[in-house]
């Protein structure tokens, strides 16, 4: 499903304003067909990177390639492949939703009237599209924002903090929609956020940035989790005895923590039960992205 050619190549990109370095020689490749998260504390340079990617900010050093097109050398070629919402999707409030879409459709080659209707239907705005945007709720504006971003069937969809100001239902809709886009249409989605739990649910891969530098790239959805060794907590009545019986494991409150794979867990459970220990619960202790994130960026000062 995924082709090997990365959709975005960020090559040694720096952004300097005066003496301050906001982004420091950033290198990043975004593979196609994924929901790719861009995570970092406030002020880490997420928005700056995204703005350089879509041409809203100039690049001080290095270059960004969208497919084969350089943002610096072939701006129009690069932008044809990108759809984006940078922060809140601001619309012309005195125009109707349809007129707003028409406005952006005119700016991209090959967007037909049928395509506009298809997109409107897709984001579920058919009933209100001919009303002025000033009558829209934030959720509806967000949908219109997604609509304008996907009108020209971009290879890459860039979203900067898309869940800001959305209610839980809106967040969920957006998340489902983005995953669907990536997995059924092969659109690569690059999404920045500081909401860790959201990123965990939404993304296949997450790049972590701190003070303008790439800290780590984590693959979240491998599909092989069950085969891996994982920290597992056995909640039992007598944790010390259980640990002694197994000859391994750390006691943590009412639980014994043991690292084991799928088969190992079943075996340990059988030994505990056979040893006369009552097992109340078995749960995998996956460290949340939040823990990992805080570990990586921990205690950083705002640069």
């Amino acid at each position, binding site marked *: 499903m995924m082709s090997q050619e990365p959709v975005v190549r960020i090559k040694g990109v720096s952004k300097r*304003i005066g003496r301050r370095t906001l982004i420091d020689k950033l290198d990043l490749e975004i593979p196609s067909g994924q929901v790719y998260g861009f995570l970092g504390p406030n002020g880490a340079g997420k928005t700056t990177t995204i703005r350089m990617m879509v041409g*809203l900010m100039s690049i001080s050093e290095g270059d960004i390639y969208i497919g084969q097109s350089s943002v610096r050398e072939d701006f*129009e*070629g690069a932008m044809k492949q990108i759809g984006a919402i940078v*922060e809140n999707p601001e619309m*012309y409030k005195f*125009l109707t939703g349809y007129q707003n879409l*028409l406005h952006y459709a005119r*700016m991209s080659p090959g967007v037909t009237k049928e395509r506009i209707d298809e997109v409107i239907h897709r984001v579920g705005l058919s009933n209100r599209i001919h009303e002025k945007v000033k009558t829209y709720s934030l959720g509806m504006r967000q949908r219109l924002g997604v609509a304008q971003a996907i009108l020209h069937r971009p290879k890459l969809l860039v979203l900067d903090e898309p869940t800001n100001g959305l209610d839980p239902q809106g967040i969920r809709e957006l998340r489902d929609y983005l995953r669907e886009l990536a997995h059924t249409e092969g659109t690569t989605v690059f999404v920045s956020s500081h909401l860790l739990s959201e990123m965990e649910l939404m993304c296949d891969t997450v790049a972590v940035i701190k003070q303008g530098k790439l800290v780590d790239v984590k693959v979240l959805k491998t599909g092989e989790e069950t085969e891996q060794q994982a920290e597992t907590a056995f909640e039992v009545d007598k944790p010390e005895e259980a640990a002694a019986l197994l000859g391994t494991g750390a006691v943590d409150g009412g639980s014994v923590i043991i690292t084991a794979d799928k088969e190992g867990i079943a075996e340990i459970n059988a030994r505990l039960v056979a040893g006369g220990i009552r097992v109340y619960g078995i749960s995998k202790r996956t460290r949340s992205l939040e823990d990992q994130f805080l570990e990586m960026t921990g205690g950083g000062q705002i640069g």
Partner: protein
Amino acid sequence: MANFFKLLKNENMKIYRRLRTWIMMGLVVIIPALVAVLMAVSTGGDTEIGAWDAFTNLTSLFFLVSIFSAIIFADIVASEFTWGTIKLLLIRPWKRSKVLLSKLLAGLIFSLLLTLIFIVVNWALSFLLFKNISTPGVYPAGYSPFSFNLEMLLYRYVDMVIICIFAFMLSTLFRSSGIAIGLAIFLLFAGNILQALLRPEKYAWTKYVLFTNMNLSRYMIGDGSAAGMTLGFSVAVLSVYVIVFLAVSWIVFMRRDVAA
């Protein structure tokens, strides 16, 4: 080029889909109508003022067209920043220079349209309300009433375009419609005062000041040729100012980082 036409269509949509624009156009019709009726009533009959004289008098209301056009120019870039829509406008496969050009052209089209409305309305009012067409001795030698008014309007239009392009530059510089509108209207009204104060006969350098060269209509009646200034000289100086205003707009708009 057909594609560039689409950009222009977008800018036009953003001008003419706003109520404000229609109010301005309405005022350009209503205010001259009121003044014309007042003129007709106060003179009591059609013996004193000829239709062309009335037309010439009404032309002094051209400042309405100037103000409204300046407002559109002052707003056309700044409002995109105020609304935040600039973030969605500049991420399309269009170079910034072309986006800015489409805005400049849309503004010029609006100013032309407003000028045409103004001329047609004034002409209709003059010839409806004032019957006596020929009044001799009102216009300078060598001008027919028609050619005099046409040339006068042309010079007023030139003044307006200069003010509008000044407003356009301020709009891109400050990203604030308020500052741009305020300064442009100040220029419009302070221009005459400054023109009176800065005497090129006394200080040679004032020959190159913007205000001294505006209001080209004074060359029609042989005034203003002080200190060797001619129509050609003023046109040259004004052209330089317009080019500088446009260059500043382009450079600033092309280089600006769109942050928060």
